[in-house]
């Protein structure tokens, strides 16, 4: 069997607004059926990148292929194969939830069942409520519903769970896993690192318009970033910290030295959030050019 072509191929992509380089020479592929997370601070270039892939913005340089076509010139048939959940909504929403879903379903050649999508986002009881009367989190669920109603092969999720309560977020994660099991390719941006770790196969980190790391969730930051941390209080009550590949041996040694249980003992494996923060801070510290540091801060 030959491997299918990647769903998304980004090669040396750049985007400038005047003198400002929002996206600076980034390259990555997303395999068909893969869930890929794009992480990075606010203003790092995530939304510019995703909007270029969605066909909303024109790139300044580089090559982009999405589902075999250049989004800058792709037509309606191509749009029928993608689903977009934009970063923010704010529509006046005079339609009811079900009217809006039915109408959007009608725009696609092979939509999902409106009732199923309504159930999948947990809005059955709000079906006949006008969208502007819903809470922020509920409106966000409508956005998600409209993004998947067309049965997309490729789904863009730009900070999809903003405003979700924890329960809604977990339900959303289940929904994304279902879409994934059906073979949907997903590109996700989020500030919730648990969400990225939970859902994505791979992630890329963008800082100041540059892709500073890319890999599976288990690989990001490299092995050094994953060395466990052991924390405890010494005999004088002072906090101690040590990074080691062999925490059990260290703890055994500590117990022997202290002649008992070390106080406040913790063994911590760095979370994706820890690794992410390490990478972003490391990048900010490592850049010498003044313009780049301001971009990171912006």
């Amino acid at each position: 069997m030959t491997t299918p072509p990647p769903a998304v191929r980004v090669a040396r992509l750049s985007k400038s607004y005047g003198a400002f380089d929002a996206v600076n020479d980034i390259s990555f592929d997303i395999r068909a059926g893969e869930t890929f997370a794009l992480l990075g601070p606010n203003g790092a270039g995530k939304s510019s990148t995703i909007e270029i892939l969605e066909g909303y913005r024109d790139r300044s340089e580089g090559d982009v292929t999405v589902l075999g076509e250049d989004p800058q010139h792709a037509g309606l048939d191509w749009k029928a194969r993608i689903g977009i959940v934009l970063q923010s909504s704010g529509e006046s929403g005079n339609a009811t939830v079900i009217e809006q879903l039915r109408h959007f379903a009608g725009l696609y050649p092979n939509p999902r069942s409106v009732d199923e999508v309504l159930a999948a986002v947990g809005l059955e009881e709000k079906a006949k409520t006008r969208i502007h009367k819903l809470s922020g989190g509920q409106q966000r669920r409508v956005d998600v519903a409209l993004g998947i109603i067309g049965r997309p092969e490729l789904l863009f999720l730009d900070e999809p769970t903003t405003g979700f309560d924890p329960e809604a977020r977990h339900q959303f994660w289940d929904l994304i896993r279902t879409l994934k099991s059906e073979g949907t390719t997903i590109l996700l941006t989020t500030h919730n690192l648990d969400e990225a770790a939970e859902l994505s196969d791979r992630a890329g980190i963008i800082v100041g318009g540059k892709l500073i790391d890319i890999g599976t969730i288990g690989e990001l930051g490299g092995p050094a970033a994953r060395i466990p941390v052991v924390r405890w209080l010494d005999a004088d009550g002072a906090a101690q910290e040590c990074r080691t590949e062999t925490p059990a041996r260290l703890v055994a040694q500590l117990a022997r030295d202290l002649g008992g249980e070390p106080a406040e003992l913790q063994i911590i494996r760095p979370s994706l959030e820890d690794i992410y923060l390490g990478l972003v801070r490391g990048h900010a510290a490592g850049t010498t050019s003044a313009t780049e540091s301001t971009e990171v801060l912006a």
Partner: protein
Amino acid sequence: MSATLTPQPQRPRLAQRRTTRHGMLTLGLARVGFEIKLYFRSTDTVFFTFLFPFIMLGIFTAAFSASGNIGTNPDGSGGISVGAYYLPGMLAAGMLLSGLQNLAIDIAGEKGDGTLKRLGGTPLSPLSYFIGKIGQVLVTGILQAVLLLVVARFVFDIALPTDPEKWLTFAWVFLLGVITCAFLGIALSALPRSGRSASAVVIPIVLVLQFISGVYLQFNQLPDWMQNVAGLFPLKWMAQGMRAVFLPDSFAVQEQNGAWELGMVALALLIWLVVGLVGSRLTFRWIRKDA
């Protein structure tokens, strides 16, 4: 959210039909129904666009009811009531409001609140979107005109023409005028910088046009220069066309050139229709691309 979605069936071949004229028309007609429903749910629109001509006709009739008829002969015969005199102007204003004001504010708002961006990410053709907007204007505009005529006849007791030829003139002036206004509205929607500022940009334009074009003020009493300025814009010609339908032919001498000049009405509206079409085509974008 419970994760129960029916898995993907076999890949459809329907997608091919989306780009055909047939598919675009079908989607456009689906948009018309959706647009009309949302139109009547927006209280702002219903009040300032749909009901406004009724309110103005009521005010004029009430305010000037004591001042007698307009156009009375020296011997006291003839003439028509103030309501009857202002009816054509109100019909023309309705066309301008339902077409230009409605769409310019509506589309600028949809641009501002992300509706257009969302639609731009779906397989909806801009052509289908336009069909939806023009259809909404036609249906609401026709409903407005019919109701205005019914109210004029039965509430204000204004006599309506009986000559079929007059109604034929009414039909083409109305359709040409309202479609022209709709396209001008689409073109004008590119002007406001945000959805919030749309009313502030559009309403003054519409208001000034109504004052200089013979909607609120008797056109033949305006100074020549103002009549000439008004003649550059479509509303003056729509109002003149409507006067040709609803005022007695004896009133034609009061027009700028002493005649109804229906040929000029058609020509002026056709020119503005082309302006509107070209303007809509050139300025319409799903989103404001900032590069």
